[in-house]
């Protein structure tokens, strides 16, 4: 269990003695495992394929495309560790005429120089970076995607070049999610949308 090659600076004797003592830690009883599995079974099943249904199901219809609300983000990205804050113009929110429809059409815009691909991820697409790729606008640094979101609170983030997660600097942050990653919050149909 103790990887000596990984820890040449440490005393292997101490490590082994500690590991032996640690292994004697008493386990919770089987009832704890059963309780855990029961709570898991009651939870909503995780899915990664929701967006395929979204696109190929012809019966799915949007509410009238009356609204285009822009969550605009001005952000400059640099290579490496540095961020370059080069603000870009944000599109102003358009007037809403969607009324009480259950869904609203939203456009997300990210300005990110020097990147090769951007995806929108959130609770609406199972946090799948392949689900909602953003489209580059005419060889510019601007990336955009339009999608329909149910009214209510959504949590989202951007994935840049397949690995870097960004929050929206213009939106409130969601509580830390337990994975060390932060996300942004948008309330569809609420203030500002």
């Amino acid at each position, binding site marked *: *269990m*103790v*990887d000596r090659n*990984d*820890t040449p*600076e*440490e*005393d292997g004797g*101490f*490590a082994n*003695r*500690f*590991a032996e*003592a*640690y*292994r*004697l*830690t*008493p*386990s*919770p009883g089987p009832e*704890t*495992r059963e*309780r*855990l*599995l029961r*709570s*898991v*079974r009651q*939870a*909503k*099943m*995780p*899915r*990664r*394929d929701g967006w395929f249904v979204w696109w190929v199901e012809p019966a799915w219809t949007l509410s009238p495309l009356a609204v285009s609300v822009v969550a605009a983000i001005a952000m400059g990205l640099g290579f490496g560790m540095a961020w370059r804050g080069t603000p870009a113009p944000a599109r102003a929110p358009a007037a809403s005429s969607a009324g009480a429809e259950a869904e609203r059409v939203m456009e997300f815009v990210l300005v990110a120089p020097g990147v090769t691909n951007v995806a929108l991820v959130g609770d609406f697409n*199972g*946090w*799948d970076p392949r689900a909602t790729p953003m489209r580059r606008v005419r060889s510019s640094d601007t990336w955009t995607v339009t999608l329909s979101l149910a009214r209510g609170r959504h949590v989202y983030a951007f994935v840049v070049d397949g690995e870097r997660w960004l929050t929206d600097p213009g939106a409130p942050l969601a509580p*830390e*999610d*337990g*994975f*060390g990653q932060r996300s942004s919050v948008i309330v569809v149909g609420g203030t500002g949308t």
Partner: protein
Amino acid sequence: MSDAELIASVLAGHSDAFDALVDRYYEACARFSVRMLGNRQDAEDAMQEAFLRAYRSLARYQERDAFRPWLFRILVNQCRTLARRRTRRELRFVSNPDALLHAKDEKEDAFDVRDALQNALSALEPILKEALLLKYGEGLDYREMAAATGASVPALKMRVKRACDAMRPRLEAMLNG
């Protein structure tokens, strides 16, 4: 089946496949959370919440990441959260002298783990204890530890060294006593 295959199976709709993942990591998570938190009730809460969060978030799991450090990251965060809550609870409690006078022994109610190893560990700073348990308790390598804790590899090496320096005499005393 590998972890990745089990996860793919869960995501394909076979929720029972998650049972195998629980069985595979249950003991390790239980040991870690008990030793981190020092009492069984909090440890069970942390573990239960960690597995539940992992299940709900499987769609966010990326195959290029190993499942074990990913799961431990969730568990580490749960333990940190519970430890913070407990600290706040105890601080509030202590700030109320009347409540303190009439309180039962909270530790007795909380199923504290009272053994020599826990006594030795309890004197460690939480981040040192966390690093020591992951490294020499669960055998994670430093890269996995970095993924699990969010700390850098050099910082983790320093924490492990400090934890070892502090623990060595205590462990010797414990084993010889």
